[in-house]
């Protein structure tokens, strides 16, 4: 998973904040500069809430809306996330990589009364953006769980202080052990079972609450169904309007594009226009070919070849039985004509008389009757025998070799995927070259195309928005209808739920045993990787006390204690490491967890470099922000940093950060410029880690050597 951007509305002080993330492989770091009280923790929570909803919240009794929001007034809170997910699937020893684009929206309405929040049920809508348009994902929660398990959120979304819980001297040894054990347990992804049990418990609890108010419930639910149906109709109508407008704009865009290309062809840019037309043709060709290959791949899963490959021995056994019958002369039946001839001759092959009235003649006549009765069956057997013989012969000459066909399809798919990627890259490159042409006649046409393109993008955005709303309202409608059905089926369902609960508990007890075994294996892997990373991070720490410069590594004991080794001694990191090295050790542990999890997801860390300085700070940042090597998948790291954390590592951020911006609380006491706002809120400006402007300027700008982005910041 890679975040592209997030839009947060009314989540704490994040009233209307757009956050974008670096997707540049060479600069995988996103830096969000924010001082204390400037929305870092809220943003960290909002991102998790967007993905996982209520279960991402530490304390459910704390409101999500801002404290200035009027009591008793509904507040609609939403988080929209644009992200992609790359799946790496190994088939027949070959790795197949496929990236899909998604857009997620989660909303909830909250009313706060007496300081206590009351929230509606969350609405979630997930779209996949494909070449064919936006497709609604029918089971969004399941897909999100596949992409980034909720169990792993503590590993991928952390803050510097909470991370210290793994080795903090403020906690008891048993607390620390359980933190480490739980983190490793999370890698085992047992959340599905825990969720199942929680789900059953929730259902059970809700069923108990239901009393005799069936009639009232039915009326209420019927009214809700009506309201939602009307809303859905309105949205569908709006969707149609936008779709029509989109079709019109698409035509205009194509016309403008053609006009631009013609203009280019007239001038000395003819070559570029030709290349663009050519690359578009290649793109279309590759897309078509990939679609065909996808269908061919599907046909392979439904093929006779697969049946043969999986059941070869059994099918041959059947053919052998028939062959045996054939060899024994049981099929095909040829005895009836012979017996008839013998009756006509009134003499058996053995020489006995078959004259009328003899017992032998009667026996032969009975045999003929019996064989005639079984003729139909014999014919079927004979036909099956011949079919089997032909199929086995084909199989023997390799006609039904499924795995070689699969391999051929996979190789083709990989090659065409490559063609597609190359064509896309070339298209982008040619477009950039065309955009760079600075000629008046072309400029006008280019502006026209861009203007229509921009309108087109906006319309597409609107369409996605409406599609999200349609999906959301559709889901609400389905939920309400389901509730309506559930009310009626209450008694029967309760019995079934109890049975499910018992079953889930049984399964969990079995899994506990298995999990202990697995934990040991994972512990070893995490421990080994943590050791390597920790040694890298502290390699140049000259601030360490003399005795600590001989650190030979770190490990996790079977009892889940994190310890540091110095020669023959085992050190307790709580008391025998300085603060910076403690943080480095914690990050080494967390980083090892993310790597061992085999999950590719954004690593979002709030205040990671607090309490660090010097070489350790640089060592930690260097390691966590380094771009992936050629063989590694994309990675993404988002750091929420204060100015003091940024100090002394600005040059490293220059190299590694693909996106940098600043968040500011308009009510912060040390701002230099006054913000016109009747309530505190978090605002974004484009200042990077070396800049300030009228939005983010603070009294200590000079201390950190920041430079102004504007001539006169405060006016």
């Amino acid at each position, binding site marked *: 998973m890679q975040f592209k951007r997030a839009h947060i509305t009314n989540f704490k002080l994040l009233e209307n904040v757009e956050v974008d993330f670096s997707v540049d492989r060479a600069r995988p770091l996103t830096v969000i500069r924010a001082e204390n009280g400037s929305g870092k923790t809220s943003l960290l929570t909002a991102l998790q809430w967007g993905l996982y909803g209520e279960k991402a919240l530490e304390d459910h009794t704390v409101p999500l809306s801002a404290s200035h929001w009027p009591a008793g007034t509904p507040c609609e809170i939403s988080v929209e996330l644009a992200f992609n*997910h790359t*799946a790496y*699937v*190994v*088939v*027949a020893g070959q790795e*197949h990589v*496929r990236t*899909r684009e998604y857009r997620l929206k989660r909303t909830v309405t909250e009313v706060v009364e007496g300081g206590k929040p009351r929230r509606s049920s969350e609405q979630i809508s997930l779209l996949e953006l*494909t070449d064919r348009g936006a497709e609604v994902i*029918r089971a969004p929660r*399941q*897909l999100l769980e*596949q*992409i980034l398990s909720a169990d792993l959120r503590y590993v991928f979304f952390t803050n510097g202080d909470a991370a210290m819980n793994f080795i903090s001297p403020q906690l008891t040894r048993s607390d620390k052990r359980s933190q480490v054990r739980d983190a490793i347990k999370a890698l085992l992804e047992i959340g599905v079972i825990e969720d199942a049990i929680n789900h059953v418990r929730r259902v059970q609890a809700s069923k108990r609450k239901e009393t005799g108010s069936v009639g009232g419930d039915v009326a209420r639910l019927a009214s809700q169904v009506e309201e939602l149906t009307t809303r859905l109709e309105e949205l569908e109508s709006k969707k149609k309007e936008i779709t029509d407008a989109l079709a019109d704009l698409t035509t205009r865009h194509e016309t403008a594009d053609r006009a631009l290309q013609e203009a280019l062809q007239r001038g000395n840019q003819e070559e570029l226009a030709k290349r663009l037309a050519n690359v578009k043709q290649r793109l279309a060709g590759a897309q078509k070919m990939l679609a065909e290959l*996808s*269908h061919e*791949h*599907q046909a*392979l*899963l*439904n093929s*006779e070849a*697969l*049946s043969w*490959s*999986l*059941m*070869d*021995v*059994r*099918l*041959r*056994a*059947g*053919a*052998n*039985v*028939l062959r045996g*019958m054939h060899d024994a002369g049981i099929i095909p039946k040829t005895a009836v004509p012979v017996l008839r001839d013998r009756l006509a001759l009134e003499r058996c092959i053995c020489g006995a008389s078959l004259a009328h009235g003899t017992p032998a003649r009667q026996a032969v006549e009975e045999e003929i009757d019996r064989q005639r009765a079984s003729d139909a*069956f014999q014919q*079927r*057997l004979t*036909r*099956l025998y*011949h*079919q*089997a013989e*032909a*199929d086995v012969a084909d199989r023997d000459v390799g006609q039904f070799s*499924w*795995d070689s066909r*699969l391999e051929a399809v*996979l190789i083709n798919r990989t090659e065409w995927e490559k063609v597609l990627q190359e064509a896309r890259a070339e298209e982008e490159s040619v477009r950039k070259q065309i955009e760079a042409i600075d000629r008046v006649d072309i400029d006008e046409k280019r502006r026209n195309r861009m203007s229509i393109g921009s309108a087109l993008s906006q319309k597409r955005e609107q369409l996605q928005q409406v599609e999200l709303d349609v999906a959301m309202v559709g889901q609400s409608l389905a939920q309400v209808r389901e509730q309506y059905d559930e009310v009626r089926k209450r008694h029967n369902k309760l019995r079934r739920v109890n049975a499910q609960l018992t079953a889930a508990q049984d399964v969990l007890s079995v899994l506990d045993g298995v999990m202990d075994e697995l934990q040991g294996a994972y512990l070893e892997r995490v421990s080994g990787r943590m050791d390597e990373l920790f040694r890298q991070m502290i390699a140049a720490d000259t601030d360490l006390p003399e005795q600590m410069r001989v650190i030979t590594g770190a490990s996790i004991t079977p009892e889940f204690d994190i310890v540091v080794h110095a020669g023959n001694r085992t050190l307790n990191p709580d008391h025998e490491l300085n603060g910076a090295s403690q943080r480095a050790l914690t990050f080494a542990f967390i980083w090892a967890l993310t790597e061992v999890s085999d999950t590719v997801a954004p690593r979002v860390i709030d205040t990671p470099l607090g309490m660090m300085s010097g070489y350790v700070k640089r060592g930690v940042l260097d390691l966590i922000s380094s771009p992936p090597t050629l063989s590694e998948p994309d990675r993404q790291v988002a750091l929420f940093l204060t100015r003091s954390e940024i100090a002394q590592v600005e040059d490293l951020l220059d190299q590694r950060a693909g996106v940098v911006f600043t968040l500011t609380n308009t009510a912060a006491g040390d701002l230099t410029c006054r913000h016109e706002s009747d309530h505190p809120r978090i605002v974004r400006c484009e200042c990077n880690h070396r800049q300030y402007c009228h939005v983010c300027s603070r009294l200590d700008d000079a201390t950190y050597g920041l430079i102004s982005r504007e001539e006169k910041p405060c006016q």
Partner: protein
Amino acid sequence: MPVNDVVNPFLNASLRIPARDWPLVEKFTTTQQAQADPDKVPFRRYVDLWWAGLCIGVREGRRTELPPNEWHRFNDGTPLSADPWRIIHLQLLAVGLTEDAKILDDPGAIVQMANEYCATGLPMLLEAMNQSTEPIMVASEFLRERCVVAVIAGAG
């Protein structure tokens, strides 16, 4: 003999799968979602997925019996006529497993046997597909691994 001449003796038999697997069978077949991307919906008809489950069950060598109310009947044997090779395979399989051609006289018993093999293999395949965003790739590797083992072990 051309397979087009194959007579379908299973027309009146009931093709069944475990009822609990039905939602995922719908998810991974295009019957109810004609425009679906084959990469995400790797099987065309219910009978295709049923057949894949049967093949895996036979490969595992295990039948799963279920009480009558835990089966879901999704069709009679008509869809088998569209792929006559399946009719031949079903019959050969039945003869191979019982080592007696008399079983061919009881199409209902053959299909019930197939249903029970399917009840073993189908949940395994569905679970694998349901854990990934790329079901066709996962299904391919799942089936390929079993084909490889079948070749090595000479089992089936």
